[in-house]
C-alpha cells in the first residue's frame, strides 16, 4: 500500500508530463501551421469570441430628436423605396451627396422591389463608390440595400382595371413596401427618419436641417413639379398632404370598411384644403400648417413616431391607406403633423400618358400641316408652269432665254425636293426652312 501511493503520484506526474508534451506539441504545431486561420476556426473560436460583441445596450431617451440634431450627433435614417428607378439614379445621388447634414450621421436604407431594370446593380455600385471615396466627409453611416418582391400580390390585389379602384390596392402595396423597409432598417440609435422619393428634381441641400429646425414629430414640404410651357409652366404635384374637412369626414362614414379615399378623383369630392394649393412663391418658407394626411415624396419624422407603432397602413385605416393614413395614425397617437406651404421642392416632370398623347397629336398635326403646305406648293408650281408654257408658246423671241431659265428652274426644284424629302421625315421644325424658301423663289421667277 505504502509503495503504491508514491507510485500512483509518480504515474500521474508522468502522464501529466506526457500530456503537457503532447499539448505543447499540438499548440506548437498549430502556431507554426501555415494554413489560413479559416481552416482552424475551432481554435480561432476562442479568440474570435473575444472580438465579437453580442450584447447591445441602448437608452431610447437619448434618441428623442431635437431641433438641432446635427449639433447633438443625432442619427437619421433615410428610407428610399425603389422600383425600376435606374434612370433616376444619377439625379438622386447628386442630391444625396450634396446633403449638408453630416454624412456620418446619416444611415441609408433602400428597398428594391419588383425591378426589371438595373436598379440594384447601379445602386450598389454608386454606394460602394461613395464609401470608398478618399474624402471621409462623403462617407455615410450604415447602408442597407434590401431586396423584397411583392410582385405576386400585385396580380392578386387588382380588383378591377378601373384606375380609381386600382388606386386603393396600389396604395396598399406601396404601404406594405414602406413598412418592410422601415422594420428592417430602423435601429435603436436613430433619432429621425426621412422618407424620400428618388424622382425629386430640385431640392435645397439643407432640407434635413430646414425641416428639423421646426422640431415637429412629422413634417413635409410642399411638392410641385415644373411643366412644359404649353401646360402652364408649373403645377402642384403632391395632393396627399391635406387638412381634414367636415365633408370628407361625413363621406368617410358612408363608405365601407375597406374603402380608401384617394384625393384627385371625382368619385370623392372632399373639399379638403391641400398644402399644394396654398403655396405662395413669395410666402414665408417657415410658415407651418397643421395637416392630417401627408404625401410621401419627402417626409421627416422623429424616429419615436415609428417606434411607438405608427406606420403606413396597408389596410384601410380611417378610410385611408399608406402615407395619408400614416398622417392620420400619427394624429391619432397625438403626434404633431405639419406641412410647410411655402417651402417647395420640385418633383421630376415625366410626361404622363396623356401628355405624351397630346404631344404626339400636336406633332402629327404639325407634320400634317407641313405636308398640306408642301402639297399646295407643288400644285401651285404645276399650275404656274402650265401657264408659263402657254405664255411662252405665244412669244417666240425670248424662247431660248426662257427655255434655259426653265431648265435651270426644274433642276433647282429637283434639288429642293431632294432636300425636302428627308427633312420632312424628321421633325417639323428644320423642314420649315427649305419648304418655305422654295415658293418664294418660284414666285420671283414667275413674276419676272
Amino acid at each position, binding site marked *: 500500500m505504502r509503495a503504491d501511493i508514491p507510485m500512483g503520484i509518480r504515474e500521474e506526474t508522468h502522464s501529466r508530463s506526457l500530456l503537457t508534451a503532447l499539448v505543447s506539441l499540438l499548440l506548437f504545431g498549430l502556431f507554426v501551421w501555415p494554413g489560413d486561420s479559416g481552416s482552424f476556426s475551432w481554435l480561432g473560436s476562442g479568440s474570435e469570441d473575444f472580438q465579437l460583441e453580442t450584447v447591445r445596450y441602448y437608452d*431610447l431617451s437619448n434618441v428623442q430628436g431635437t431641433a438641432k440634431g446635427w449639433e447633438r450627433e443625432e442619427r437619421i435614417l433615410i428610407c428610399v423605396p425603389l422600383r425600376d428607378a435606374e434612370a433616376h439614379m444619377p439625379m438622386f445621388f447628386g442630391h444625396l451627396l450634396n446633403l449638408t447634414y453630416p454624412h456620418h450621421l446619416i444611415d441609408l436604407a433602400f428597398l428594391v422591389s419588383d425591378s426589371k431594370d438595373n436598379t440594384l446593380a447601379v445602386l450598389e455600385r454608386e454606394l460602394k463608390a461613395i464609401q470608398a471615396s478618399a474624402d471621409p466627409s462623403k462617407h455615410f453611416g450604415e447602408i442597407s*440595400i434590401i431586396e423584397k418582391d411583392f410582385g405576386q400580390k400585385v396580380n392578386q390585389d387588382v380588383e378591377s382595371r378601373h384606375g380609381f379602384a386600382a388606386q386603393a390596392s396600389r396604395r396598399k402595396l406601396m404601404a406594405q413596401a414602406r413598412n418592410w423597409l422601415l422594420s428592417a432598417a430602423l435601429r435603436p440609435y436613430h433619432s429621425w427618419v426621412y422618407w424620400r422619393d428618388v424622382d425629386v428634381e430640385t431640392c435645397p441641400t439643407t432640407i434635413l436641417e430646414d425641416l428639423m429646425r421646426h422640431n415637429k414629430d412629422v413634417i413635409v414640404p410642399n411638392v410641385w413639379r415644373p411643366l412644359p410651357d404649353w401646360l402652364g409652366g408649373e403645377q402642384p404635384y403632391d395632393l396627399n398632404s391635406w387638412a381634414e374637412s367636415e365633408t370628407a369626414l361625413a363621406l368617410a362614414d358612408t363608405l365601407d370598411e375597406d374603402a380608401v379615399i384617394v384625393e384627385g378623383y371625382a368619385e370623392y369630392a372632399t373639399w379638403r384644403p391641400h398644402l399644394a394649393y396654398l403655396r405662395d412663391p413669395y410666402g414665408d418658407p417657415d410658415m407651418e400648417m397643421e395637416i392630417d394626411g401627408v404625401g410621401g415624396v419627402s417626409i421627416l419624422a422623429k424616429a419615436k413616431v415609428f417606434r411607438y407603432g405608427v406606420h403606413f397602413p396597408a389596410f384601410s385605416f380611417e378610410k385611408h391607406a399608406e402615407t395619408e393614413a400614416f398622417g392620420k395614425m400619427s394624429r391619432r397617437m397625438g403626434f404633431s403633423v405639419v406641412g410647410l406651404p411655402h417651402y417647395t421642392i420640385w418633383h421630376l416632370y415625366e410626361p404622363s400618358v396623356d401628355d405624351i398623347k397630346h404631344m404626339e397629336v400636336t406633332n402629327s398635326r404639325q407634320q400634317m400641316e407641313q405636308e398640306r403646305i408642301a402639297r399646295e406648293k407643288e400644285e401651285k408650281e404645276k399650275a404656274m408652269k402650265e401657264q408659263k408654257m402657254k405664255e411662252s408658246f405665244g412669244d417666240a423671241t425670248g424662247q431660248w432665254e426662257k427655255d434655259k431659265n426653265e431648265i435651270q428652274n426644274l433642276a433647282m426644284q429637283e434639288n429642293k425636293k431632294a432636300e425636302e424629302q428627308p427633312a420632312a421625315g424628321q421633325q417639323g421644325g428644320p423642314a420649315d426652312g427649305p419648304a418655305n424658301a422654295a415658293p418664294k423663289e418660284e414666285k420671283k421667277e414667275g413674276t419676272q
Partner: protein
Amino acid sequence: MARPLGPVRLKRTSPGTIAVGIVLVIVILYLLVSPSAPDFSAARKATAALHPLSPPTSPFRKSSSVGGKAGPPPVTRYNLNSVTITNDPVANRENVLVLTPMARFYQEYWDNLLKLSYPHELITLGFILPKTKEGNAATIELQKQIAKIQKHGHEKERFKSIIILRQDFDPPIPSQDESERHKMANQKARRAAMAKARNSLLFTTLGPDTSWVLWLDADIVETPPTLIQDLASHSKPLTVPNCFQRFYNAEKKAMDERPYDFNNWQDSPTAQELASKMGKDDILLEGYADMATYRALMAYMYEAGADIHTEVPLDGVGGTALLVKAEVHRDGAMFPAFPFYHLIETEGFAKMAKRLGWQATGLPNYKVYHYNE
C-alpha cells in the same frame, strides 16, 4: 530489493501512462475537431456584422479587432425574398427574435429561457425595461445573468445576440402590484404604455434576417423546452399557447393550476353590440364583471389529456407567450397604443393582423405557466 529501479518502474507504469496519454489525446482531438465546435464559430462568424452600425440581431466585431482607424460601414445587401418561414425552422436555420418587455427580473423566467431547446445561436433576445427604480434593479440583474451566459457560458448556451433597451417614457402606474395593476380604470393607460413599449422593442430590433418573433412575458416561468419548435410546427401567422398559473389550493390542500390569460378569445355578438355603442376612445376589456362580453375564452377551452396540437381560431390574443411570423409585423401589424376597433395592445394587434389578412390561432391544450406573486 536488488532489482534495478528503472526497468521495474518502466514496466509497471508505462502501460497506464500510455493508455491515459492515448485516451487524453483522443479526447483532446475529439474536443478540437468535434462537429459542433466548428459549426458554432462558423455560424457566429458568418452572422457577425463588420461594424457596430448594423442590425442588432447580429453580433458585431469590436472596433479594436480591426486595428487602427475603422473605415466607414460597408454597403450591405439583404435579400428578404430568401428569409424563409417554415414549419421546420431548426432544419432551415431560421432566426428567432425573442422579445420581452421586463419590469421585474424573475430568475425562473431566465432559467426557463435557457432551457429552450431551439438552437441558441439562432436566437436573439430583446428586452425593454422602464427607467424606474424597479426597472434599474431588473436591468442590473439581467445584465449579470447575460454576462454569465455570453461570456462564460458553454458555446451551446450562448445566444446569437442580445439587445437591452431602456424605455423613453414613464410607465403610468409606478407600482407593479397585482391588485393595482388590474384595476379596470388603470387598464387603458397601462396597456397603452405596454403597447408603446412592445412596439419600441419590436421595430428597433426586427432587422432584416428574422423569421419568427416570440413574444414572451418576463413573468412566464415555465414552458416546454420545445416551445418555439412546437408553436412553429403549426406554421400559422400568429400562434398562442394557453397561459395558466400554478397556485396552492387551500381547499384541496395541494398545488393546483388555474387559467391566467383572458386576452385569448373568440368574438361574441354581445361584445360587438357593446362596441357599437361605445365612444371612439373607449375600449373593451376582458375579465371584468362589470363588462360582460360573453366572448369564448381560450383559457376555458383546455381539455385535460386532449391533443396538445388542437387549434382554435382567435379574434383577440394575449402577449404572455405568442409566436408571430416576422412578415406579419413587417406588413405593419403592431400593438395599437390607441383604441383600434375598441381594442388595445395585444388584442388590437390580433385585429390589425386580421385587417392585413393574417388570422390568429390558439392552442388551448398547450400550456405555459405564469408566475404567481
